[in-house]
């Protein structure tokens, strides 16, 4: 069946395209500005194409930020790894091994998701100092793991809630216990859950600023701190576009099912 072009279709697509353009404007501005030579940059001509292409700002930014990118990568990968693994185990217990009080405990966990980071800032660096973790990446990783736990536990709990209980029971009858059910049944089934959670965590940690600036010494600064616009956004943007559909699913798992 061929779609007829009606007035409403035209209005519909016009609205869609206009909105898309509005959303792309900031990106356009960023890209052309970053291609301009410093002398070329001025407010009244901010929308115009650069007179000459100047790619040096990319190279400069990259050279300047290389250590920060490395830090951010180490930080993000480690923190994402630990928080998703722990979150997956927690979610497994909360979804499949409920015990008296587990729901209250879970609710108390969730609460941690919503605290403004400012509230814990001062005690956090005192504690990290006492643990001799202040200033370096391990301390920052610990912080991100801990404050990532509520959301990862939530996503995994909701994910595991969809796995039928009969699968667990069947495995119990087959002779599997707590850990063997996890490693042999639950874990192999949670790859999508891991993708979703890691993406969420990756984005959050990569973009985080306040702790990055307050909890690390210079040599351990993540990228947001050693920021230059387009460079900080690119890796996430890329990963995001590639794995977009998982991303959306993850957002949903984390927020809707509750």
């Amino acid at each position, binding site marked *: 069946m061929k779609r007829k072009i009606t007035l409403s279709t035209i209005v519909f697509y016009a609205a869609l395209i206009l909105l898309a353009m509005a959303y792309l404007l900031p990106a356009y501005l960023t890209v052309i500005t970053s291609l301009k030579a410093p002398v070329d940059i001025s407010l009244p001509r901010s929308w115009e194409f650069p007179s000459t292409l100047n790619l040096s700002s990319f190279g400069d930014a990259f050279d300047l930020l290389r250590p920060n990118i490395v830090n951010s990568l180490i930080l993000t990968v480690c923190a994402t790894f630990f928080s998703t693994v722990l979150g997956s185990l927690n979610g497994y217990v909360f979804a499949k091994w409920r015990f008296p009080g587990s729901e209250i405990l879970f609710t108390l966990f969730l609460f941690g998701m919503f605290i403004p980071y400012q509230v814990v800032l001062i005690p956090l660096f005192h504690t990290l100092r006492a643990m001799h973790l202040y200033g370096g990446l391990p301390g920052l990783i610990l912080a991100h793991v801990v404050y990532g736990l509520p959301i990862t536990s939530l996503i995994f709990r909701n994910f595991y809630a969809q796995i*039928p209980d009969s699968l667990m029971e069947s495995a119990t009858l087959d002779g599997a216990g707590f850990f063997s059910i996890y490693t042999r*049944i639950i874990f192999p089934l949670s790859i999508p859950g891991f993708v979703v959670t890691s993406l969420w965590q990756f984005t959050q940690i990569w973009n985080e600023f306040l702790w990055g600036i307050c909890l690390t010494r210079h040599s351990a600064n993540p990228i947001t701190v050693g920021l230059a616009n387009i460079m900080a956004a690119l890796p996430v943007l890329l990963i995001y576009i590639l794995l977009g559909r998982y991303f959306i699913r993850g957002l949903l798992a984390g927020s809707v099912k509750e």
Partner: protein
Amino acid sequence: MAQVELSKVSKQFGATKVVRGIDLKIEDNEFIVLVGPSGCGKSTVLRMIAGLESVSSGEIRIGDRPVNQVAPKDRNVAMVFQNYALYPHMSVYENMAFSLKMAKESRDEIERKVREAAEILELTPYLDRKPAALSGGQRQRVAMGRAIVRSPSVFLFDEPLSNLDAQLRTQMRMELKKLHLKMNTTTIYVTHDQIEAMTLADRIVILKDGEIQQVGTPIEVFERPVNRFVAGFIGNPPINMLSATISGAGPGTMLAMGSLHLPIPPQPACHDGQRVLAGIRPDAIEIGSRLVGLRTDWHVQAEVVLAEILGGHSLLEFTVGDISMIAELEGRIIARPGEKVALGFDLDRLLLFDPQSGLALR
């Protein structure tokens, strides 16, 4: 090889009693079907036997061993779930091998047992497939295969056929029966489908509100239900249940249903003028040539409401005076609404119940 014995088994979830003190002895190699309406506790009983639910009070014994405190995996039972509970990330082979692997059996042994079970269930060509690539009936068979490989002493089935379409269900039902004949393992089967119960069971256990109503062979529960509930639950189309009054006694006993008065065999359990519920099975009503075998004073003139032909037999809804009933009749009955037909009741198979207690009067 095991008998299963439940004594005074109860289950409570918080304040709600789901199973109320059940006593049941299941013989070795027997095929027992638990039926009852949803929420009657039949699945809970099954899951307690499997060990998936704890027992609130009472005792369950498998073989001669009390198993209340035994972990599910050590009870030597296998279970087929309603949704099959196949591990989606494992192939058919791995699914069937999983319990053996958990029991640390040798690789060769596992291979042998899985191949054997696959042979029996005609699953050999599919061993490398994932469950998602199988049809409903094949998945069902894998679930059974997973149970078979362990050669358990008890098979547990939790509504295993309810996810299949009608045709496949009939076919799988027969395969199940044949399998039982071949394996000869004690089997406990939960369903709400009474045809499955009638066709599969050695004995049927009918449950309601967590209590056993009747235990008996299919024929027993059909022909001699102990109460109104069992009579109504077993049989399709359901039994015609009418309020009636008994008059007279001995050979002159009469049954009055509305304006219809019929002589019935002597009812020692009834007295003159007693109000009863009269149950007449739809297949205890005859028509045409089969009327010949019936007493003539059981013949009536009925008015057709609707006739449905179901292939080899027919259902006829009719009225006699001010009462209406359904009959299940041999052959194809072609009758127009309003048409008058001659019917006969086989009142030897009449069932009488006390209207208050619902218990059978006999």
